[in-house]
């Protein structure tokens, strides 16, 4: 009886530990992936800033993504990081498109 109980407890503990380890490994992998997304977003933000094209909320979005990552909310963190990266790329493209002065047609020079 005792032997059976001991066996069952050991088996259960084994299953639980394996499960936890798997979850932890999965978490580590997710965290690393999200961190990469955040790093990419920050690089995009910096690239936009280097040409004066950073948008107002990009940095804040990256900070929020970091916070969410810390809390383990990988899906929300990844979503925000991707959005921030998009803003960084658009900000850069916008600044490059405005690199040369374009005088508006409504100003008339004589």
């Amino acid at each position, binding site marked *: 009886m005792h032997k059976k109980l001991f066996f069952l407890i050991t088996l259960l503990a084994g299953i639980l530990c394996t499960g936890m380890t798997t979850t932890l490994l999965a978490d580590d992998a997710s965290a690393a992936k999200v961190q990469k997304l955040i790093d990419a977003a920050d690089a995009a933000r910096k690239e936009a800033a280097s040409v004066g094209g950073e948008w*107002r909320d990009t940095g804040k979005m990256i900070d929020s993504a970091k916070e969410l990552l810390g809390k383990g909310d990988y899906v929300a963190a990844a979503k925000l990081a991707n959005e921030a990266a998009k803003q960084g790329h658009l900000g850069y493209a916008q600044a490059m498109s*405005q690199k*040369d*002065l374009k005088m508006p047609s409504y*100003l008339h*020079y004589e």
Partner: protein
Amino acid sequence: MKKVFQTLALIALACGIGVTAQASTPEQDLQAFQNFFKKRFPSVEMDDYANGAYAIDPAGRENWEAIEEFPPYEPFIDDGKTMWDKPFTNGKTYSDCFPDGPAIAGKYPYWDKEKGMVMTLPLALNQCLEANGEKPLKYKKGPINNILSYIAFESRGQTTNVVIPKDDPRALQAYEDGKKFYYARRGQLNFSCASCHIQNAGMILRTEILSPALGHTTHFPVYRSKWGTVGTLHRRFSGCNQQVRAKAFKAQGEEYRNLEYFLTYMSNGLPLNGPGARK
């Protein structure tokens, strides 16, 4: 036929390059800029542009005139006078840095050939403080607005007269950089300064009438009801940039100094009437 197309394409390309490369002088820019507003608001007297949106908004003007009967910026002028008169730790005062003061607002911004940069009044004030062993003031909020209010008040009636010296190409470059900043679209909303204050001046945005760019620099520092205090021109630049969801630049950094240089030049000929009161 192919050759004809090639020739036409070349001509079109050459014309395109010609338009892009065509540069206008500051004088031509000024004329085009001021003429735009003369045509847009033919009944507005030139000097009235110094009153911002109230030059084109009769209802807003009534409120503003009522506010001006008990100007909210008055205590700031008084505090500024105290600052002007109070000796620094070394016994000197602002007068030692600005012997022509306090009515010196009309001299700024100017091209400082020696430093190779646009010199603005707040920057000059802080340089004075630092040269006398004092701590510089913050450029957007706080006591800098007191001393600026006092100087602006004492300078009322002076005329905006920014000069782009022809003997230093760096001055023209600073002006051009400021101009480019003004007409460049930025931020998530993809607006330029000109989108609101030239192209759409006089239009209503939510509950507000967009003020004309002409005269934008005459009345700073300004008491804004929204702020509940007096703020600097660069604080306003910063706020405008943020409204179009662009990251603001540093107050008194090169971008905003050059922008001030260009924008003030565009108001050449208008009277200085700071400090002002706005919504």
